[in-house]
């Protein structure tokens, strides 16, 4: 049976921000087999739908995950709004898009820091997280919360942007774009970083389709898939192209996410330019009845909100299928045959969000 080392890559590990367990079977530091065990963060919050009425559930929906929390709230509200076919005011659409793109920006910066930390590049981690603090500052200024900001509600948004806030946002965007250029050239052209990401965990276009990869994982392997092109919220009025890479390895995923950061900065500028006046929410009356599937684009990929209402205050069912849940099979595929030193990088390249996966 040759000489194998079996080690637990456990729930508590310095390089894993969240608990996921892998049995790693190694032979001379090459991974023969990796069997996952999830369930450490499973709270079963979809069952809360019987205890909290549909208004209160927005707060639960937002707390599925701390990184992509805004879009969870937005997705849930959009799904309920489509059931009650309520049309939210134009300004609210734009405000939601601005906050959505800001939260995508901070999620990608966070991911970049963790990836740099995984291959031993501590100063890049510090630098990207310092830039991220500026965006959290904007969140605190505009919505009051740094990570979870209950600002989205059914029928619109709770807080508004005044002129001074908008000025600050565009100033920060300018500054961020300049700083990002330096970091991007380190990630894409530095020899030692390229050595660790080029050709690692390759996922061909066919395999990506076969394994149901979504979001940056699929786009890095050449699949044209970006929910924002469907023009929900205010995306219909913005001009942008989904970012596609071809060779599908860690390097391609890094460059997809980096270019998406620049794209988000550009989208936010467009939104600020086109921000119409008007009120920010519309009063909703009555109780939802019927069901609806809503698909929007989270930082890690396409998410599906299915909600089913029966005319009472308490919904029947809310089902959230999050992107990492779809990316886990792709992770297991890329883990076979990689080196032990690449395991943290491969886990991080799908940008895992365990609390999203296990709800």
């Amino acid at each position: 049976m040759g000489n194998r080392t079996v080690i637990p890559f456990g729930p508590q590990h310095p390089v894993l921000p969240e608990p996921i367990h892998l049995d790693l079977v190694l032979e001379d530091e090459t991974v023969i087999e990796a069997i996952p065990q999830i369930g450490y963060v499973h709270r079963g919050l979809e069952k809360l739908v019987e205890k909290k009425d549909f208004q209160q559930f927005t707060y639960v929906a937002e707390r599925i995950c701390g990184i992509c929390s805004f879009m969870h709230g937005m997705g849930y509200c959009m799904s309920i709004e489509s059931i009650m076919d309520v049309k939210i005011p134009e300004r609210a659409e734009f405000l939601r898009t601005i906050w959505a793109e800001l939260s995508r920006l901070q999620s990608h910066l966070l991911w970049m820091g963790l990836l740099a930390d995984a291959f031993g590049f501590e100063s890049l981690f510090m630098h990207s997280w310092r830039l991220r603090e500026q965006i959290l500052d904007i969140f605190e200024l505009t919505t009051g919360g740094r990570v979870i900001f209950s600002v989205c509600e059914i029928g619109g948004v709770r807080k508004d942007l005044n002129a001074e806030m908008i000025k600050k946002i565009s100033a920060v965007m300018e500054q961020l774009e300049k700083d990002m250029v330096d970091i991007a050239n380190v990630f894409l052209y530095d020899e030692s970083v390229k050595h660790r990401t080029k050709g690692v965990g390759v996922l061909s276009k066919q395999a990506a389709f076969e394994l149901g990869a979504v979001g940056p994982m699929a786009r890095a392997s050449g699949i044209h898939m970006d929910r924002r092109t469907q023009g929900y919220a205010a995306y219909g009025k913005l001009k942008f192209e989904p970012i596609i890479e071809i060779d599908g390895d860690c390097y391609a995923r890094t460059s997809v996410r980096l270019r998406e950061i620049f794209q988000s900065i550009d989208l936010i500028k467009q939104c600020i330019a086109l921000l119409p006046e008007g009120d920010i929410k519309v009063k909703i009356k009555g109780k939802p009845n019927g069901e609806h599937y809503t698909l929007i684009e989270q930082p890690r990929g396409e998410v599906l909100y299915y909600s089913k209402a029966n005319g009472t205050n308490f919904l029947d069912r809310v089902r959230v299928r999050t992107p990492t849940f779809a990316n886990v099979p792709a992770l297991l595929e890329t883990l076979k045959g990689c080196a032990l030193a690449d395991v943290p990088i491969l886990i991080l390249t799908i940008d895992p969000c365990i609390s999203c996966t296990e709800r």
Partner: protein
Amino acid sequence: MHEIAILILFPLIASAFIFFIRKDKARNILVRICSIVTIFLTIYVASKYFNKALYLSFNNETIINQILMFIEILVAGYLIFMGIKNKKYIISIFSAVQTFLIIWFELTQSQGIEIKASMVFDKLSLIMVLVVGIIGSLVCLYTVGYMKWYHIHHENYKERKSFFFAVMFVFLAAMFGLVLSNELTWLYFCWELTTLCSFLLIGYTKTQDAIKNSFHALTINLGGGVCFALAIIFIGMKFKTLELSVLIGMKPEVVVLIPVFLLAISALTKSAQMPFSSWLLGAMVAPTPSSALLHSATMVKAGVYLLIRLAPLLGQSSVGQVVTFIGGITFLANSFIAISQSDAKKILAYSTIANLGLIVICASIGTQESLWAAILLIIFHAIAKSLLFLSVGSIEHQLGSRNVEDMDILLKVSRKLSLYIIIGIAGMFLAPFGMLISKWVAMKAFIDSNNILTVIILVYGSAATVFYWTKWMGKLVSNANKKEQVIHTFHIDEETAIFTQAVLVIISCFSFPIISKYALEPYLATLFGSSAVIPIGTSDVNIMLLMLSMFLILPISFFPIYKNDKRRKALTYMAGVNTGDNESFNSAFGKNREVEYSNWYMKDYFKSKKISFWSNTLCITGLCVGVILIVLAGGR
């Protein structure tokens, strides 16, 4: 009868008696007595002729020659018969050619040659006699215990214990003869006798691949024998002398180099250097005592002993360069291949070939320091390696497998055995022990004689040696808790042999300054004329000895600290999912899974096939270049 003659003849007589006693009990007692007697005999002879070199010739010279010739013919007949029977015609050709040559030479050419000293007993042969005597007899003592359970474990092998003991003692006699004789024909006779013994011992178990390997070993050694015979004839015809000491005394100009080259080739085959190293790996099939005695401690040392004798001639000559080149390639290649082996005996075999390569380099450079290092290397390597082989044999008996991976429970199975093998491994590469001191002096010698490439090879090789020895020692040190393991008896004979050898390893490391002062320096002085001095400074020697004593005191001094330092036991860190017994963790699918550890073998980094292929070709080209150089120089 002279003491030297008694020393050589006694093992022969002993083996005859042992051969005819079939009953186990009696034979074992006889073997024990014979081994102890041999040890005393060697010590007695060594102490008697300690300070005066002895040049000795026998009056009934011709009768001895005739007896030798008669035995040679018998042996040749047997080998030719075996060659034909097993359709290995190359063997029959080789042995026929070499015996015919020697007989023709003895009868026609050698009338005129008078031999002044047919036997020589100087400091080098003193060391070799001690090594062969003490280690040889200890191994025979060990074999008594080993053979007891060996046949219980392998029922399918035909039981021929008496034959085994007999051949061992014949081999001892042959080695004594080889080390003492100065006359080339006698040296040649003992040389061929050792080849015969190794053939018989490898083929002991009579399994399919044992026979194949024994013939493989026989062919290569007989090839060496043919070169030896040619060399004797050349020397006899050209210089009208048959004495090694006379040959060494000549000036190394071209015509002398031809026989020296032939002798060097036969030495290289005997000590399994690169182009010819495959036979030693095959020999690992034989029972462990034979590998311990023949294939690591004594027989393979004969080749290197011959090279050390020829060192003054090899020093500046092109033959020396070639031999250094071959020694270097062998040392480096085998150190790398040893990393990717997991069978204990294979690791020991590769490490033996590598260390022999090192000794060959030191011998063929021929400066005074390198010879000092070569001889020390022979002593330390013989003791430490035979200790390792014997302990691996006992471990195989205790654990039932030779794989290094299963040795992590040895500390629980038998604490004594793991202590002995740790001393053995430490002896092979750790700082204050002998092998490292000789490597240090070897390094100094290479750099002084300006061969930079050998320094680089030594440096890379010792890095690889550190890797595979520490890896093995790590396994022995991690006392994994024992799965239910049946405890086998650790036989008293085995233990005494191993214990004495372990003590020998430590004593030899302590006493290397004394060895150098009384044995090495006088010998080197006779060889180089100038008063030889110990290459390491006295301050370093003291630091070395201080460290060695620290090595012994530290473990003992730690016991009191352990006793009064009660500590809370905690679980090992298994990322939080340790099931509580430090052996398994709860894994996916809700099952518990065992944690397994294994060393690195880097099979795809050091591809043993590719390395051995390339180094073999390199060495063969090296030899051809040597031949061409000789022929060119000879032609002019």
